[in-house]
Structure formats: C-alpha cells, structure tokens
C-alpha cells in the first residue's frame, strides 16, 4: 500500500486546518448522518437562497479523510449555484467509486482530486462520502423550502 496516495499533503492540510467548520446560522436544512460501521458522524447545515448555496456549515467526529472531505467540499460548493454544486457532488461520488481508475477533473474538483487515491481503499470510501452524502440530503431538503 502506498500510504502517501491516501494521505496526500492536501488531505492532511485540510484535516489539520478545516475550512468552514462549525455550525452557523441561518440555514434552510440540517441533517445528521452516521457511518454505521465506524460510528463517524456529521451534522451539516445548508443555506440556499434563490438557487445559490449561500453557506454550508458542519460539525462532527471523524477521521482525517472524512474531515478533509468536508473541508474540501466547503471550499468547492459554498457560494456555488446549487445545480453546479450537485454536479460537482456527482462527479466526486463517481470518482470515489472508481477504484483509482478514473482521471479526476481538476477544473471541477480542485483540491478534491487528491481523493483519487482514497478511491483505492474501499473501507475508506464511505469516510470520504459521509459529508458529500449529507450535503446532497440537506440540499434537497433546503431546496424544498427555498422560496424564490
């Protein structure tokens, strides 16, 4: 196993200095997701205004991979159009299912390309997906109440 494929510098940086962490107001929807096999948890809030992701705020307990995934997700999706955010979400999920066989799209994923290595470790894919799945869920709920 090449550990450095998994624990790339980018990932460790985001883990040590997570972006956007902490629960903030206002928000349109809050969700709580759990990884039942390891017990990791995330609480995540999404604030949508007129189809724009105004804020994503989150807190929880998790390993370096899930923490870094949340931080990178915040960087990529906060401030984006919801449709773009969901598209990036989809591309990220696809990357995580690729078992290291997909060339990641740096334009779309930014620092997220560092996760290409994670996709080779099936046991860790769920860690990386935890915040992204929570976002998808929260965004759908927030969209339902986004009035504009």
């Amino acid at each position, binding site marked *: *196993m090449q550990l450095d494929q998994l624990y790339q510098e980018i990932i460790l940086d985001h883990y040590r200095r997570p972006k956007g962490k902490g629960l903030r107001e206002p928000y349109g929807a809050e969700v709580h997701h*759990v990884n*039942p*096999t390891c*017990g990791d948890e995330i609480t995540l809030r999404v604030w949508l205004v007129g189809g724009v992701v105004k804020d994503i705020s989150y807190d929880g307990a998790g390993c370096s991979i899930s923490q870094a995934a949340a931080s990178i997700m915040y960087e990529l999706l906060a401030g984006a159009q919801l449709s773009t955010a969901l598209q990036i979400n989809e591309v990220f999920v696809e990357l995580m299912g690729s078992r290291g066989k997909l060339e990641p799209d740096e334009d779309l994923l930014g620092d997220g390309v560092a996760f290409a290595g994670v996709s080779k*470790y*099936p*046991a*860790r894919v769920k860690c990386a997906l935890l915040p992204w799945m929570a976002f998808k869920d929260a965004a759908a709920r927030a969209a339902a109440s986004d009035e504009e």
Partner: protein
Amino acid sequence: MTLTIPAGMPQYDDAPRFDVEKVRADFPIFGRAVNGQPLVYLDSANTSQKPQQVIDALAVHYALHNANVSRSVHTLGTEATEAYEDARAKIANFVGAPSPDEIVFVKNSSEAINLVAYAFSPRSEDDRFRIGPGDEIVISEMEHHSNIVPWQMLAERTGATLRWFGVTDQGRLDLSNLDELVNERTKIVSIVHMSNILGTVNATSRITKRAHEVGALMMLDASQSVPHLPMDVVAYDVDFIAFTGHKMLGPTGIGCLWGRGELLNAMPPFLGGGSMIETVTMEKTTYAAAPARFEAGTPPIAEAIALGAAVDYLTNLGMDAVLWHEKELTAYALDALVTVPGLKIYGPQIPVGRGGTISFSLGDIHPHDVGQILDADGVQVRVGHHCAKPTCARFGVPAMTRASFYVYTTTEEIDALVRGLEKVRKVFG
C-alpha cells in the same frame, strides 16, 4: 413413455448441453465407494454434492483472506468484505434481482421464510404487514414443513387464519377455488415453486396475479427451483423468494431471502445485534437499511463466498442446459420406473411441468426397507415423509421413497436404481 416434441418447437439437438462426465470429474465424492459399490447419489433434493471449485473457494478464503466483514479498515477485512459483497452481487444476478441489496443472507431457506413471517404483526406500521384476527394466510397442501410451520406459528401468534390450496390426484395444485381462497382478507400467499416430494413445478402466474389483485403479498419457496431452472424474480413478478445454498452446489449454513427492495425496507428487523444497526444507545436503536438490517451478527462469510463460486459453476454450465439435462433424465427415469412391477409414482407422470425429483411406493414394502436394500448397492435415495407430511397424508401413505437428480446424474445411475428395486422385490416380495 418417451418425450416427443412437436415440430417447430425446439428439438433436443438445439438444446444447450454439457458433458456430464466432465461435470462428474469436478465432484470428488464420486471417487468413493459405498458398501463396495460405486456411489450412486440420487438424493440431491435433500442436499447436493459439491464441486472441487466450491470446496476450494472455502479453503482459499480461510487460508488466505479470512477476516470479519464490514467492520475493519485493514487489508484482510477489506478483502473479505469485497469477496462477500461480490458474492451477493453474483447471486442477485443469478436470480435476476434488480439490486444486490435485495439479497439477504440467512442460514437456510427455513430462516428466510421465518424472517418474512415474523415481519407480520398486529403492531406493524405498514398496512401490508399488519395482521390479526380475520386476516388470512394462504399456502398449499404440497408444502415443505418449512413453508407450513412458520405460517401456523404466525397464525397462532396473531389470530389470523391459515388456509391452503389442495392437491389434485395428478399431484398438481388445485386452483379451482383460487378466487375464493385468495381474497380481500389475504395478507400473503406463500407457495412452493417446485415440490420437493412430488417434483411438480407450479405455474405461478395465475396465483401471483390474483394475489396482487387483492393486495396480498406473494412469496415463492424456491428452495428446489433456483438450483434447477433459470430464475428471474422480475419476470415471475413475486415479492419474495427463499432459497438455500446447500441444494445448489454450495455449502451448508447459508440461504438467501430475496425481496423487493421497497418491501424489505418497510419490514421491521427480525434478529437484533451487531451490524444491523444505524446507531445504538442504551435507550434506543435505529436500524440500517436492508440487507444489513436483517444480517445481525457475523454473517456466513465463507459460505457466501463459496455460494458465489457455486453460482459461477452453474452459470458456466448454463441454467438452460441444467434444465434440459434434468428434463431428459426425468423422462428416462419415468419410462424406466413404470417397468418395475408394483411401483406407483406420486406426482406428475409426464416430464412436463415437473423437475427431476420422483417419489414412489413399491407395493407394500416400507420405504425404509427399500432404501436400505438400495444402500447396500451404493444407491442413495431418501425415504420417509420428506418434511412434507401433509402431502404424504394427501396420498394416504406415511412415507415414500424418493430419487432426485442433478447436474452430475447419469442415466446409468437410474438403471442402477431400477436394478436395485428388483432386488428389493426379491427380498421382500
């Protein structure tokens, strides 16, 4: 009787085939003798023999990849988890399940049926699983005990009424009262797909249609059919099927429940424990989605992987070829058995709408004695009530002798059976 097929229908030569001698070479047990005679194994409806490929799958797993699943980040655990989930996907594919998540690993068919029966209760939040006095459960008179007792127990627990289809003299389901039997009060209909005693393969579409018409669920006990014919749960349009590893070249200790995903996720958990939870506090537990919800504790890991290998083996032969092989054997055996004086076959007498499982009596000679004499010649048949006492009662006998075939069975083995029966007649005639 010989099997003639009208022109224009597929002929035998068009049928997919495999080389039975090559198949036999894969089964180490055929290298042994029984009572000094070559083994003639005619008890596959009871349990099948195992090819080396399946035995090796077990041995290799334990020797090189053994670990618990779904719980580890370590390499062995990841290997074991991937092999386990790959097996689930293979098996889903084998029965035409739309998603691997619709396959629940259990210990045998019996557990699968009990799991569904225990999902019904007066407290159910989902109307489809709410049951009480006045509600009805429908089975048939040709069921294996494993598709009778769980429903009797459910009826007793909840005050619901158990009802059943009768069986005709030809050994077929009597559907004459279908519309009355399956009615607005019916919650579930659970029917054997292929009878383990009469060999009958039941045509299910009329029953399924009627069940769904009245809003009842439809389950097939496919313990004897999944090993022997191509199964497609979507084409059959049923809600649940149960089948069991050891009858389809796989190991003991594993069976499967297939259920429509939406239904499985509407069912309450059955066994509680590790791996079926989402989160646990001392006060309250929330449950994982299916299939995990129904797989409490350490599952039959090696068994699932080996069942995957068995499914590979069958897929390689081709289930159409398996079906034709057994149809030919059945036609041959029916022809041969009627030549034995005093022999009476229970169940369909023609090789149509039936599988390669033939039960019979030989005059007044008790099946125990028949089986014992045959055993002396190496011929292994099952004798007794075959866990289907009501079917025996329907035909007025306490026990029958049964010969059953599988991919490795040859016509020579059927000849050995017939020779053995002559000997039985001599000893007890």
